[in-house]
């Protein structure tokens, strides 16, 4: 059971070294690829092979970023988009999880709602944009609603299938020990579906960004999605590229955050 320290054989040391070199070369190649793209982009735009008016360039991008940072407007836009995304993410995940629990609880409800869920899942949520704006008003509420709509159905469906895939024997075991439905839910179904919950979180990180940016494309006066749309409309490609870059970084950070959470859950 306990892992002891063992003197590895030469062959094993060689194997470990090989694994390590393999990892290092991969990372080096990844960095190299990134630098090459940036350098090539800069070079081609400097040489006017690509028109920087249409293509922007790394140096112009960073200059735009720097200006936005020094004026403080960047953080304002980031703050708004982050707030929308995180709020949408949390509400959608909680709501979807809760609906999944309800549907697990009642087979009848599940059967009745089944066609509605199928339709909702198939429907491109962006089509609901105008309705959302009319119903909840333009601005932040509409954006968050869009974000929730995009995440909630997939959350419900994934969690429900995780709940339902629980081993029948384990449920029978719980019942043979006298468990009621609440106990089966809280002591078996929910903890059993924890790994699936973490993968839903990972999916939702991506989906909530999609929802928020889509929402901002439709209605907004601030936020990264707004910057991208606005930049596109007035042909400020520097702004579009810079905002996209920031968006990439933020999505990465949020993804890493969930990744850490996943590791903690897996350890248990």
């Amino acid at each position: 059971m306990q892992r002891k320290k063992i003197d590895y054989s030469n062959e094993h040391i060689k194997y470990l070294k090989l694994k390590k070199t393999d990892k290092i070369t991969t990372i080096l190649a990844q960095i190299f690829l990134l630098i090459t793209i940036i350098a090539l982009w800069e070079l081609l735009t400097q040489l006017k092979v690509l028109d920087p008016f249409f293509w922007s360039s790394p140096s112009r991008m960073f200059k735009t970023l720097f200006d936005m940072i020094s004026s403080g407007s960047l953080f304002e836009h980031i703050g708004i988009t982050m707030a929308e995304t995180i709020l949408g993410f949390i509400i959608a995940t909680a709501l979807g999880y809760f609906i999944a629990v309800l549907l697990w609880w009642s087979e009848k409800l599940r059967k009745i709602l089944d066609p509605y869920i199928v339709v909702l899942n198939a429907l491109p949520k962006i089509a609901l944009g105008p309705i959302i704006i009319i119903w909840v008003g333009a601005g932040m509420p509409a954006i968050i609603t869009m974000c929730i709509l995009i995440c909630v159905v997939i959350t419900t469906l994934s969690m429900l299938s995780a709940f339902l895939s629980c081993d029948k024997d384990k449920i029978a075991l719980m019942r043979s020990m006298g468990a009621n439905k609440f106990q089966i839910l809280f002591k078996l179904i929910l903890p059993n579906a924890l790994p699936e919950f973490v993968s839903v979180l990972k999916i939702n990180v991506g989906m909530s960004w999609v929802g928020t940016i889509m929402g901002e494309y439709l209605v907004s006066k601030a936020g990264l999605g707004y910057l991208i749309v606005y930049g596109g409309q007035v042909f400020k490609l520097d702004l579009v590229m810079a905002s996209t870059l920031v968006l990439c970084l933020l999505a990465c950070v949020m993804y890493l955050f969930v990744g850490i959470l996943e590791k903690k859950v897996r350890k248990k």
Partner: protein
Amino acid sequence: MSDDYLQLKDVSLSYHTKEGEIKALKNINFCVKQNEYISIVGPSGCGKTTILSLISGLLKPSSGEVLFEGKKLDKSIQIGYMFQRDNLFEWRTIYKNVILGLELKGMAKDKQSLERANNLLKKYGLYDFKDCYPSELSGGMRQRAALIRTLVLKPKVLLLDEPFSALDYQTKLNVCDDVHSIITKEKQTVIAVTHDIGEAISMSDRVAILSSRPSIIKTVQEIHLQHIDSPLKRRESPEFSKYFDNIWKEIDNAEKKD
């Protein structure tokens, strides 16, 4: 030791599906004595597991009744149920798995019960592993933990549903010995379902042979062996192969009647 510790009286059961009705069991009658180990064997798909589900209360009989000490079996009588796989919860430590039943019954803080759990873990060599997760244990140890989880609740009757069939042969023989000795020490009354005739003979006092669907009990074979210390020893008894032959023929006949 009364004859009617657990009794199945004229028990029939039908499954209903859209396609129709399937008669699984027909007028099953048999008694289990206290501290007895009885195995149920029969052709595959004959409803062996159904009998266990009936006794455990997971299914209700279409007709007939299950009696415990002369009274109708209800929720107040604890029945232990062990499955083919150990069904330990991977997110709980061995200790937490073992006290699961106590938690469900609101006895997780009951000192006496917890002491019993700890004592069983100590007695059967799992105490050092109580903070390990199931994935860190071998198949045999996991099955032992599952058995302790059931025993903590002091079941009146222990139901085993092919509890050894998921193990490889070598492990299976050892785990059989292991489980048999624990069951004997804890003075359990056991009804086991198996398709392994050798296992049935080596573990049981009696072996009930079911016919194919709708199942009735064809015969009940009493097992008297020369060696009785452990299932492994019992397998070496001279009468072992005779019993094996008899039971095998009975099951074979039952299958051919289809």
